């Protein structure tokens, strides 16, 4: 029973307390770049979640075999493999979405969230907890970028998931689907999310202390942080 409870809190941790996008501000590049439409946000989130679950699972299995020295190349290889698989699968199953997301699918390899979870969680925990952690983080990321995508699509294009919703209400402002609008919406949503999440006052997150143990230089996205094309 106790174990079940821990698993659940690990899962929910990624959605609320350590939401990668709204709380940790990780993976900003895809969060801003692909979120011009809600559908793209959802697709990107799902693809990243698949990679996250796969890499967290494998890394937690090999964590005791891989010597510390080569752990980073080993993890990157695992992550790159899953990213390539996801790209092939997308090309087969959802070619339309694959075209929309374009370069951002291969860029999942250097997604900060995935590497951070490998270093901070999968490396120290067993496979089942690691999968739960990946699912929670993936869900948190997906929910977050789908919300950003929804707000930007509704305000910027007047549609949601491709369907017109604001025809008689207001005329959409293209500003919101451009990068500047993306940053603005992001800022407001982070503020709103933090306000709501802090109200609960349960700040006893599992890895509150070593959340940034890797630090900025250890983060694979450090050089490209905020680099939105």
């Amino acid at each position, binding site marked *: 029973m106790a174990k079940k409870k821990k698993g659940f809190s690990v899962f929910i941790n990624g959605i609320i307390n350590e939401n990668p996008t709204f709380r940790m501000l990780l993976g900003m590049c895809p969060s801003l770049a692909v979120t*011009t439409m809600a559908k793209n946000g959802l697709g990107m989130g799902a693809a990243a979640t698949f990679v996250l679950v796969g890499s967290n699972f494998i890394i937690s299995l090999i964590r005791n075999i*891989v010597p510390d020295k*080569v752990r980073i*190349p080993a993890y990157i*290889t695992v992550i790159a493999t899953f990213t390539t698989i996801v790209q092939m*699968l997308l090309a*087969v199953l959802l*070619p339309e979405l694959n075209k929309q997301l374009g370069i951002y699918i291969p860029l999942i390899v250097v997604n900060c969230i995935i590497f951070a979870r490998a270093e901070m969680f999968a490396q120290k925990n067993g496979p089942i907890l690691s999968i739960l952690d990946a699912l929670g983080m993936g869900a948190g990321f997906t929910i977050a970028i789908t919300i950003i995508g929804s707000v930007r699509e509704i305000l910027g294009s007047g549609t949601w998931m491709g369907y017109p919703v604001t025809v008689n209400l207001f005329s959409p402002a293209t500003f919101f689907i451009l990068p500047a609008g993306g940053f603005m919406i992001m800022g407001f949503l982070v503020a709103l999310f933090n306000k709501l999440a802090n109200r609960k006052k349960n700040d006893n997150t599992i890895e509150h202390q070593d959340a940034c143990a890797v630090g900025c230089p250890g983060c694979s996205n450090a050089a490209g942080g905020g680099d939105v094309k």
Partner: protein
Amino acid sequence: MYKEIIKPALILFLICIVLTAALAYVNHITKPIIEENQRLEEQETLIRVFAEADRFSKEIEADQLRENGFVVPDGVQKLYEAEKDGNLTGYVVVVSTKGYGGDMNILVGIDINQSITGVVITSHNETPGLGDKVTNPDFTDQFKGEIPKKVFSVVQRQASDDNEIEAVASATKSSRAVTDGVADAVAMVRSVIGGD
């Protein structure tokens, strides 16, 4: 020595081998499906610009056309012959043109009576939400119909003449790129049909 250097290298090597094998397996399964998808997509897009045809020839590359003595504008990549009931009824030209964000690939269908049957942009790098609106039928349908005597020109107001193309708001450069591509396709087909 062994623990410090050889063991880590060996383990990393093993991990790479296992993962590469996994990738090769997935590639083996998905590759034929992806290729088949691309082929179907090609036929489908050709039909979109030339609905009347029931069969398309194999692609004819631009170099091949040049060798046969036709005047080939720079943007033209390849040409397909469209057939209906075994008779030649027109051409589909694949052109590449410089857009605002990079190369754009455009399919232009032109029948033997020199009417444009359709224009579809198959790939582009235009700004999402702005330049990519040139892919909408609202814009591309302006080219449809008999090719005007005068050359196409892009205007930033309501089009009043049949050679005028109304630019997509805030995307004049993208609109121009498409128009240039269509003009190349027209020149190509005129060269193939002969006369003007």
